[in-house]
């Protein structure tokens, strides 16, 4: 009896999970479907069956070069992730293992910077970039993406590091490990799943960032977000072309997310049940 109830509950939970997953994934699925419609079909109303035309992909490819913004997206997301890790691993380590009475306040303050609307600092940031010659440069945008994602990275790493028992690090110190040795040989191997999932999430966030990447670039450093934005049209039908451009832009990150979902889920739920 108990087994039957348990089986029924599993079935219900599974179905519910599938429904929720489908609802979350549906906008992406519909974008992909729309990309295989003609412009007239795309605006005609809801339909899950496209005519299968690839004219939008042909138009997108002939209208602009996909490779350059794609490479910029790769460089910016990986570059900003590595830079963020370089800063946040020591920061999270110090806050997790040598907390002071202000550590929680610092963490909250870091998070509070995410609550400010980006547009509020657009002009000051633009002026700084102009004066330092960083407008439309990959270096400038890498730093910018690092800075905006840094609070999340520090928070995530801090949470993972807190899960590692301090006694292990003490034991390492007792055995004569240096600070460097402690971080590299003891802490890092234990925190690899956490660091990996933080990296993946940061890459996704940087890949999808569309406010600063559009406003601080023109041609040289413009990533795929700017590529998508260029297909929206004030007069004329553009939904199918926009969907094709979006599909091309999200495909790499979608594939990466698919293959690394185990690490992502493990990292995101790490410590959640405690």
């Amino acid at each position, binding site marked *: 009896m108990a087994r039957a109830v348990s089986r029924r509950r599993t079935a219900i939970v599974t179905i519910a999970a599938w429904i929720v997953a489908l609802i979350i994934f549906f906008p992406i699925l519909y974008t992909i479907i729309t990309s295989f419609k003609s412009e*007239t079909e795309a605006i*005609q109303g809801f339909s899950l069956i496209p005519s299968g035309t690839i004219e939008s992909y042909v138009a997108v490819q002939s209208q602009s070069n996909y490779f350059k913004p794609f490479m910029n997206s790769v460089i910016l997301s990986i570059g900003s992730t590595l830079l963020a890790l370089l800063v946040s691993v020591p920061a999270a380590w110090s806050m997790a293992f040598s907390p002071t009475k202000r550590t929680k306040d610092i963490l909250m303050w870091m998070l509070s910077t995410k609550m400010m609307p980006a547009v509020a600092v657009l002009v000051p940031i633009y002026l700084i970039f102009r004066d330092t010659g960083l407008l439309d440069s990959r270096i400038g945008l890498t730093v910018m993406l690092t800075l905006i994602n840094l609070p999340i990275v520090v928070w995530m790493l801090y949470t993972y590091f807190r899960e590692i028992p301090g006694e292990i690090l003490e034991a390492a110190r007792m055995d004569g490990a240096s600070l460097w040795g402690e971080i590299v040989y003891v802490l890092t191997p234990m925190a690899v799943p956490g660091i990996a999932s933080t990296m993946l999430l940061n890459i996704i966030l940087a890949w999808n960032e569309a406010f600063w990447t559009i406003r601080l670039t023109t041609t040289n450093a413009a990533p795929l977000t700017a590529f998508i934005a260029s297909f929206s049209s*004030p007069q004329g039908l553009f939904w199918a072309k926009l969907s094709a451009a979006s599909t091309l832009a999200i495909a790499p990150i979608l594939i990466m997310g698919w293959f690394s979902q185990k690490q992502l889920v493990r990292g995101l739920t790490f410590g959640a049940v405690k």
Partner: protein
Amino acid sequence: MNLRTFLLGSCSALVVAGFAQAETLTIATVNNGDMVRMQTLTDDFTKANPDIQLEWVTLEENVLRERVTTDIATKGGQYDILTIGTYEVPIWAKQGWLLPLDNLGADYDVDDLLPAIRSGLTMDDKLYAAPFYGESSMVMYRKDLIEKAGLTMPDAPTWEFINEAARKMTDREAGINGICLRGKAGWGENMAFLTATSNAFGARWFDENWKPQFDQPEWKNTLDMYVKLMNDAGPQGASSNGFNENLALFQQGKCGMWIDATVAASFVTNPKDSTVADKVGFALAPDTGLGKRGNWLWAWNLAIPAGTQKAEAAEKFVSWATSKHYLDLVAEKEGWANVPPGTRTSLYENPEYQKAAPFAKMTLNSINAADPKNPSVKPVPYVGVQFVAIPEFQGLGTTVGQLFSAALAGQMSVDDALAQAQDVATREMTRGGYIK
């Protein structure tokens, strides 16, 4: 080193030096058919000017406006040429953000530019932007449906006629709406249409002392007529329809009439996309007998920001892209029907263009009927037919647009929408220092 090596080396050095001196112009633009076409034809320009290279930044209209405004206001210098609308030109020129176009070349023929378009881009007798394509608004209607309704569309209809025709053409069971009009909130969406229409009803945004006029009977007549007409003969969910949504409805044969930008004429008569391509007729935007037609005036223009270091090269490109030669080039490569319309008188005198574009005469008449400096029956302190060329208008126009869209959706009454619009406009104009 022998002589040959020396000469080869010198030549290479010269080539490298020449390449290093090549200027790259960065052009900010919107994604519309004419602009995309121009990007494919620029070889003609770069061949004649091998020392100039072109880079394009294409953005969505609102993002472009915001992006370019930030850059130009902070003198960021990211762009050498801007694509801007008729709304921005007088405001930006007044701020000193644009360079006057004094050196467009001997064969440019400025006098050939359509006077209505040119006047909107001129300040103190100086041209601050060159029009790339221009448009007005007009009535596009289904000839078969109006015939079925037992009516004949005049070349210059009145709103009374449009109301009657729309109601007679409506056949809900067959999915035909008598009229499709913009309802989506936005200063460039429903407010472009309603502001232009209000001119025909004798309404105006402000009196000579910048006092808002939404409490006057002319605005009440405009909005009352619009909401009632759309309820009786408009499509469902009209409050979220903009240009593109109405275009799709018309192309699918679901609208008897559509009053919108003249540029739509080429879309609705294109058999590739439109199911009613051979059944479309054109007429001037309607009036109410007060001497003003509700047709707007808009142009996408190329302008040079004051912060550019490459003004000379930029002006060369602007001259090329808005020249008679460019129109001939498009005609040669893509046919006369694809030539950017609404900028030059000579285009409308060209018999080949008249033959290829059956809507040419109506487009020209519509553009000529618009007067940005005297848009309404009563005098106004501003420039602009479907907008008010002041910096505050983007925000104010959109807020009022939201109120009018809510009235169309039945979320508030016409009287409430107008009263709130009056309050908002009075507050904004006082804050802006227009009302002392």
